[in-house]
């Protein structure tokens, strides 16, 4: 494409069906523990 570059093509909507296992790390907006913000989580599956 000439005018738009898609940097990341994900679709969160597709994760609803098989998601929610809870194995990923606890999240916090504060690094008072070595947590991640939810936006920086990596799926543990």
């Amino acid at each position, binding site marked *: 494409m*000439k*005018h*738009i570059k898609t940097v990341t*093509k994900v*679709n*969160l909507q597709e994760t609803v069906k098989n998601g929610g296992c809870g194995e990923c790390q*606890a999240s*916090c907006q*504060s690094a008072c523990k070595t947590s991640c913000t939810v936006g*920086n989580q990596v799926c543990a599956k």
Partner: protein
Amino acid sequence: MIHKFEVDGTKIVLDVNSGAVHLMDEIAYDIIDDFAALPEDKILEKYGGQYPVSEIEEVWAEISQLEAEGVLFCEDGFTGHRENDQSPTVKSLCLNISHDCNLRCRYCFAGSGHFGGARTLMTAEIGKRAVDFLLENSKERRHCELDFFGGEPLMNKKTVEEVLAYGKEAASRRNKEIKFTLTTNALLLNQETTDFLNREKISVVLSLDGRPAVNDAMRLTIPGTKGSYDHIQPKISSFVESRNNENYFVRGTYTRNNLDFSQDVLHLADLGYKYISVEPVVGSPDDDWALRECDLPALFQEYEELVRQYVRRMREGCGFDFFHFNLDLNHGPCLPKRLSGCGAGYEYMAVTPEGDLFPCHQFVGKNRFKLGTVWDGIQNTAIVSEFRDAHVYNKTKCRECWAKFHCGGGCHANAEFANSTIMEPYHVGCELEKKRLECAIYVQVLKAGYKEINGPLAKAADIC
């Protein structure tokens, strides 16, 4: 829903419901807001005086294609509904190993370590019972987490050692794993403790606010008249070196006293620390160091300056990791996980030295929020439900916010302290989080090798 924003000429659009991120040139960036509202002929009419018709038609076609692919103007088909589980799955505990501290930090959420009660230490017996509570209530979750917190946990090192050993063995018996973290002010970090933390591979958070004068204005030694920088910075540096600059965070807090906090971040980076977080203080609006609405413009500029310096150092080969600029756009968590960031109150709980359970360390001592005890289990299921239901679809301000799936709805403690309800997020916190997210997305765009400078899209050299 889309969110468009610009950082130093780079024009970015986030498609909220899919999570896709797009880089746009000037025409596309200009037109995209009207795409959902106007038909093509009206778009041509509106913008035909500014841009060539052929270019507008190209942009229209590109947006249409991305919409058809589900990565622009994606609808939100999720409602946030989940089965109401009266028995929560607990996967993470914060152990207040010590309700005491050897510093007297002015902004301490724990009231200088004792949370408003007596200065006490957790016994190993209660710590082990907390481990059992975690493992028993984690149900089918294999990965659990346990944080040694306080007060200052190293004031009660014996309990830390015993609980760690017990936790590893108990988890192994159940075919589970516990990830351990310890947060410390570093004052008691001697060689023996360093060796222990490294041997056991415990992740460590080390508290230091930044420049000496900034740190010493808030982080004071007992009885609260002198700063702690000269005591703790050498210990932190020594510790970081002992574990090859890995598996830790140096964590600072900024207040109204240092709105130029990017200088504190860079000070920590100049000390050689690779993993850095400097975060806004939370406190009562009456505190003279509390952040205010009127500080936001200056803070927004400060985050922009910080991201410029962050990118510059990365390009020069001397980059550092900044907690709030970390974002995984491609392998992030599922949508159900994103509904609320931390899981406080149902997945994550704090334990006092007496064995009482609270939604998180910030709620310790606030009796309305007591959940139960590690002996009797969860008794206040109403509070558990309250926290579980305080997610982005149920909170009015979050539902309409572009940042909801990256933010997770903000800190419940901040909301409660500012608004006396966890259903309304803390406004200053929201504004800062949105600014940080824009910076974090910008960093990811650059790392993907894209840069837009007032002209056609160009792929710049990778910055790392």
